């Protein structure tokens, strides 16, 4: 029996879809059976980031309205056998999706997959309610900005009313130099306000955007820090305890030397 995890944030543009794609990919890299669900009806993106746009035949609304079987609507990933995507509808009426319909789909998927990662739309309306309805736990994504943290706080409040495990937190798009200067909220501040478990931090990286545009989630690459962060998040989801990544730029021979000798950089 699998576990359903919803990725949500309240605010738009903080990286829910990117996070969904990368956590899903990272889990698949660890030989887990993973199904991604895009619940952002009308504004679907997850298929683009996964590079699976061209393969869509049926979507989630077709499944709910029983125009096709669930298995027919699932798109198998190019790279992994056990990574699938259930795409959102692009044209259909939003009201077609109901919480009952979602629960039913997730129950069915849980039989076959280890992890079901649900990409939640922005906002707190029906789309949000649908996305969280079948989930066992939630991961809240925020950026170190006041507005984003405010919305995340609202979301955590709403999630606390649901019957699910306490949500975890990902702080996304961290810009190291801004955080150091105090121009951005620092990690401790964000965690203190939201007071939920921090499951990962991801640095802002141009590579992430590049990778998304290519339809190849960055978690597939070995080098970039963001890729390491996403893979670490996946390991933490699996229950491993992995220390938080250091925020320091460890480029430059001098810094590496200092680090080697245990000097503060």
């Amino acid at each position, binding site marked *: 029996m699998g576990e359903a995890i919803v990725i949500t944030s309240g605010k738009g543009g903080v990286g829910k879809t990117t996070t969904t794609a990368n956590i899903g990919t990272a889990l698949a890299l660890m030989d887990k059976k993973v199904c991604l669900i895009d619940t952002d009806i009308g504004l679907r993106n997850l298929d683009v980031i996964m590079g699976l746009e061209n393969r869509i035949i049926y979507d989630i609304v077709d499944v709910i309205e029983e125009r096709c079987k669930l298995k027919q609507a699932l798109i198998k990933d190019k790279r992994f056998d056990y990574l699938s995507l259930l795409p959102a509808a692009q044209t259909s009426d939003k009201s077609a999706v109901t919480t009952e319909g979602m629960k039913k789909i997730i129950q069915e998927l849980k039989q076959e997959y280890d992890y079901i990662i649900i990409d939640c739309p922005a906002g707190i309306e029906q789309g949000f309610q649908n996305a969280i309805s079948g989930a066992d736990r939630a991961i809240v994504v925020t950026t170190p900005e*006041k507005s984003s943290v405010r919305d995340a*706080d*609202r979301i955590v*409040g709403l999630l606390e009313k649901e019957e699910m495990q306490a949500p975890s937190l990902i702080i996304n798009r961290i810009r190291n130099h801004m955080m150091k200067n105090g121009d951005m909220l620092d990690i401790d501040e964000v965690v203190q306000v*939201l*007071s939920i478990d921090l499951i990962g931090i991801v640095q802002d990286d141009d590579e992430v955007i590049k990778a998304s545009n290519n339809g190849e989630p960055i978690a597939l690459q070995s080098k970039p820090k963001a890729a390491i962060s996403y893979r670490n998040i996946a390991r933490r989801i699996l229950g491993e305890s992995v220390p938080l990544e250091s925020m320091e730029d460890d480029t430059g021979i001098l810094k590496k030397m200092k680090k080697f000798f245990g000097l503060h950089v």
Partner: protein
Amino acid sequence: MTVDNKQVIAMKGTRDGLTLFLDDSCSFEQLVAELQEKINMSKTGKNEQTTTVVVKLGNRYLANGQKQKIASIIEDGNYFQVESFESDVIHLEEAVKWKEQSDVKIFNKIVRSGQVLTVTGDLLLIGDVNPGGRVEASGNIYVLGRLFGVAHAGKDGDKKAVIAASYLNPSQLRIAEYISRAPDYESDGVMMECGYIDEKEDKILVDRLQVLTKKRISLSGFERRMLNG
């Protein structure tokens, strides 16, 4: 009808006016009859200044209609003015309401953005009020945690209400109908401080918790709660 000679009404003059002691073991009719008599006797016709009267009821409970009747007898002819009725007993409903308003309600949670926590009486919150969150109480608000959002004490108009927090950095403090907001520049907040209405300055001031021992002496006493009720 046999009326025993014992008087059911005793009068006593004080500095502030007249106090009427109404016997609490006789019938209401008896009381009314004797009161009528006494008042008529007291009307001298000379005294132009109206005297204020406090009516002490002892262990008798009077409904509003009965109070009105007594008051109308006393005030007939504008010689006397009823200042208040004082009774040793109160109605159960009032008592429950009173208790409700004097109770300290304890919550152990985080009030997050968009959430509103409203209580009747005093609020003791063990946890934070996050930015965008809001706490309201008809009495005082104590926050054992960090207050970032909006706090409204004395919601029903109690100007004596106070807001105290371990860490105070609110976007707004409201007490009764007074509102004060945080400055536009970013501020760090203060530890162990409180907000209260200063009568002289006629606005909400924020000061160390210790000033409350001087400014709100009755805060811990039962008296305040009685007034509150």
